[in-house]
C-alpha cells in the first residue's frame, strides 16, 4: 500500500459470498505484481485438485509504481493454468491497475464458485455479488457495454470480462480488460468460467496522499521526460510492434503456414507499414502511459447489397498479425483484422487460437483429420472458414473442436500430428522463429511466454551463438523481469527502468530499497514460481520440442535438434544448481 509498510489484500469467496481484508507486512519486500501474486497463489492453491476446481484461486496484484509513474500500467494475474495444468501468470493493462489502486487494494484473491452466473462489483467501500444470468452467453463487447452502464465512475473504472469461450471452459480463453486489452495466454478466462464469474467491475476514489511531494513530483516529471523525450520508447508508438513482420520475414523468422515456412509471400501486405498506411485510425494508451502503443485499425465490410457497410475498429499488434496472419496464410491486412475481431468477441487467446487452427489446417491436409471433424475445409488463406472455426472452438461445437479447445498438447494426444504442433512448454508458440534462445526461452520460462526471458532478443543480437551464454542470458533476464513485473511496469519500458531508475522511483515514494533488496526479491520470486511448478508436478525434463521447429530455417539457419536438447539439459542442470544454492542459503 502506498505510504504504508504492508500489502493490502482483498479476499473474496464466491461460494459463500464472504469478503475479508488483510494487511500483509510479510509480503512487502516482494513489492507487488509477480512477486506478491505468485506468493499468494502458492498459499491459496490446491495442488491436489484440478485447475478448474472451485477451490483454486485467481489472484490479481498491482505494484508500488502502478499508475503513479509513467508506463507502470499492468496488473498481474496468477492462477493454475487449465492449458498446462501448472503455473499460470498473465498481465493486462488498460485501466485495471489504476482501478485496483483507487479501490484501495494491492492484491485481490478470489476463490470458490458462484451458485449462478455472477459479476463482481468492487469499489472502495463494498464488494457486491451481482446476478449475471442475463449476461451469460453474451459476447465481450455487449457484456462490457451493459456493465459500463451499471457500474462505476466513467473513466475511473475497469471492467474485466469473459466471452463465450471462457464460459465454455476453453483452455486458452482469456479475460478481456476494458477496450483492447487482455489477460491472454494460459486460460484465465476458463478459470473465470469455472467459477461462473462473468466479469469484475472495479472502481474507487480512495484518497491516497502523496507522502513526500517534492521527491515524488520531481521524480515523476524526470521519468515522464525520459519516456517522452528520449528515443527509448518512440518505436512502440510509431509503427509499433508490427514493424517486426518485415524484419522477421527478411531474416527467415516469421512463422508462416504452421511454420512450414519462415518467410511469407504476403509479408508486405500484412506488414506494420501496410497496417499503418491502410487501416490505422487511432492510437491509445493504458492509464499512466504517455506512449500510446495500442494501434487501432479500421476496416469496413459489406453485409448486404445496396451498399450496406459496417465498420469495425480493431486493435492489432505483432503477435496477432503473426498468429492470425502469416501463420494462417492470411493475405491481407483487413482479413487479419476480421480474424482479430472474431477472437476478441469470443474472448479467446489470439496466439493459441491461431496456432491451433494452423495445426488443424495441416492435419486436414495430411488426412490426419477429416472434414467431418473440422466442419469446414480449413485452408491457409481462407479467412471465411477460419472465422467459422474460431466460433466452433469458442462454442465447442463438436468433439473435435471440444478437444482442440483443450490446447494442442491434448489435441495431438487424441489425434496425433505432434511433430508439427507448435507448442513450447505446453503453450502455443509466440511469433518469433528466431532460433535456439527463443525456443528454449519459451519452453523454460516461468509462464511459458516469450516475455519471460526474451530469448528472441538474444537470437537477434548475438554475434555468434554460444550455448553457455544462452543459458546465462535466459536465467539472468528472467530474474530481472521478475522484479520489473513486480513493480509493475510494462515490459515495453524495460529500457527506461534500469536499476538506478527503479531505485530512484521507489525512494521517491518512501520505499528505500537497495540494489541488493531488488536482487533478493527477484531471486525469491523466480524460485517461488519454480517451486509452485514443482508442487504442481511439472518437470522441465519432460519437455519435448516439436520436430517442425528443426525443419524450417531460423535467423541462424535450421536448428539442430540434438543441440537444442543439449541446451535444455544444460539449462535444467544450471537451474538445479542455482536452486540448491538458493535453498541452502535460506
Amino acid at each position, binding site marked *: 500500500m502506498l505510504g504504508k509498510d504492508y500489502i493490502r489484500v482483498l479476499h473474496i469467496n464466491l461460494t459463500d459470498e464472504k469478503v475479508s481484508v488483510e494487511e500483509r507486512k510479510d509480503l512487502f519486500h516482494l513489492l507487488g505484481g509477480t512477486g506478491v501474486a505468485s506468493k499468494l497463489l502458492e498459499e491459496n492453491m490446491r495442488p491436489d485438485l484440478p485447475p478448474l476446481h472451485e477451490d483454486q484461486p485467481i489472484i490479481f496484484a498491482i505494484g508500488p509504481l502502478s499508475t503513479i509513474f509513467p508506463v507502470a500500467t499492468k496488473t498481474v494475474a496468477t492462477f493454475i493454468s487449465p492449458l498446462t495444468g501448472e503455473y499460470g501468470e498473465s498481465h493486462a493493462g488498460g485501466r485495471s491497475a489504476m482501478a485496483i489502486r483507487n479501490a484501495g487494494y494491492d492484491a485481490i484473491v478470489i476463490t470458490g464458485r458462484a451458485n449462478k452466473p455472477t459479476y463482481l462489483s468492487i469499489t472502495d467501500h463494498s464488494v457486491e455479488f451481482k446476478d449475471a444470468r442475463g449476461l451469460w452467453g453474451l459476447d465481450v463487447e455487449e457484456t462490457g457495454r451493459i456493465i459500463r452502464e451499471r457500474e462505476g465512475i466513467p473513466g475511473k473504472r475497469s471492467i474485466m470480462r469473459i466471452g463465450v469461450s471462457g464460459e465454455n471452459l476453453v483452455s486458452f480463453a482469456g479475460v478481456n480488460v476494458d477496450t483492447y486489452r487482455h489477460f491472454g495466454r494460459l486460460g484465465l478466462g476458463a478459470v473465470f468460467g469455472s467459477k461462473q464469474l462473468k466479469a469484475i467491475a472495479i472502481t474507487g476514489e480512495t484518497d491516497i496522499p502523496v507522502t513526500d511531494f517534492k521527491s515524488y513530483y520531481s521524480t515523476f516529471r524526470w521519468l515522464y521526460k525520459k519516456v517522452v523525450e528520449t528515443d527509448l520508447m518512440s518505436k512502440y508508438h510509431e509503427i509499433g510492434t508490427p514493424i517486426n513482420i518485415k524484419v522477421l520475414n*527478411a531474416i527467415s523468422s516469421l512463422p508462416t503456414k504452421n511454420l512450414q515456412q519462415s518467410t511469407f509471400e504476403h509479408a508486405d501486405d500484412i506488414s506494420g507499414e501496410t497496417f499503418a498506411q491502410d487501416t490505422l485510425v487511432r492510437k491509445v494508451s493504458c492509464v499512466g502511459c504517455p506512449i500510446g502503443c495500442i494501434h487501432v485499425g479500421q476496416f469496413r465490410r459489406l453485409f448486404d447489397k445496396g451498399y450496406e457497410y459496417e465498420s469495425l475498429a480493431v486493435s492489432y499488434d505483432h503477435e496477432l498479425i503473426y498468429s492470425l496472419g502469416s501463420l494462417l496464410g492470411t493475405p491481407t491486412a483487413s482479413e487479419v483484422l476480421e480474424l482479430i475481431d472474431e477472437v476478441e468477441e469470443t474472448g479467446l487467446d489470439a496466439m493459441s487460437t491461431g496456432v491451433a487452427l494452423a495445426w488443424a489446417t495441416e492435419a486436414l491436409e495430411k488426412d490426419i483429420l477429416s472434414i467431418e471433424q473440422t466442419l469446414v475445409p480449413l485452408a491457409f488463406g481462407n479467412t471465411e472458414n477460419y472465422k467459422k472455426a474460431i466460433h466452433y472452438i469458442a462454442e465447442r461445437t463438436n468433439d473435435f473442436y471440444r478437444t482442440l479447445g483443450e490446447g494442442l498438447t491434448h489435441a495431438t494426444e487424441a489425434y496425433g500430428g505432434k511433430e508439427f504442433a507448435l507448442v513450447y512448454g505446453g503453450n502455443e508458440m509466440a511469433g518469433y522463429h528466431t532460433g535456439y534462445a527463443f525456443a528454449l526461452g519459451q519452453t523454460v520460462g516461468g509462464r511459458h511466454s516469450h516475455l519471460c526471458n526474451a530469448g528472441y532478443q538474444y537470437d537477434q543480437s548475438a554475434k555468434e551463438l554460444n550455448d553457455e551464454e544462452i543459458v546465462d542470458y535466459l536465467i539472468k533476464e528472467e530474474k530481472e523481469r521478475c522484479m520489473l513485473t513486480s513493480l509493475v511496469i510494462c515490459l515495453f519500458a524495460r529500457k527506461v527502468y534500469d536499476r538506478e531508475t527503479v531505485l530512484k522511483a521507489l525512494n521517491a515514494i518512501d520505499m528505500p530499497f537497495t540494489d541488493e533488496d531488488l536482487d533478493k526479491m527477484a531471486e525469491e520470486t523466480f524460485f517461488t514460481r519454480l517451486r509452485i511448478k514443482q508442487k504442481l508436478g511439472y518437470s522441465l525434463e519432460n519437455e519435448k520440442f516439436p520436430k517442425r521447429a528443426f525443419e524450417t530455417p531460423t535467423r541462424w539457419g535450421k536448428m539442430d535438434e540434438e543441440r537444442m536438447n543439449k541446451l535444455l539439459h544444460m539449462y535444467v542442470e544450471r537451474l538445479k544448481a542455482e536452486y540448491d544454492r538458493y535453498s541452502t542459503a535460506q
Partner: protein
Amino acid sequence: MTVTVQLNDYFSRYGAQSGKVSLPDGATVADLLSYLKVPPSEVGFVIKTGQVLKETDKLDDGDNLLILPFAMGG
C-alpha cells in the same frame, strides 16, 4: 563504389534515406552505417541477397542492401 540501400521506415527518424550511396572501395558495413548516420546499436540487420552481414564484412560495388531494425517485443 556505389551501393543501393533500402532503409526500413524505422530509420526515417535519423533523417537517413534509401537510395544510392557512394563509398570508398573496400568499405565495410560499419562504414556504410556511419556514412548514413544511423546509430549502429539501432541496426538489427544489414541484409544482402537474403544473407545477414556482419559489421566487418566488406561491401562490393553494385550491392543491394536492406537495413532493418531489431524485431521487438516486450
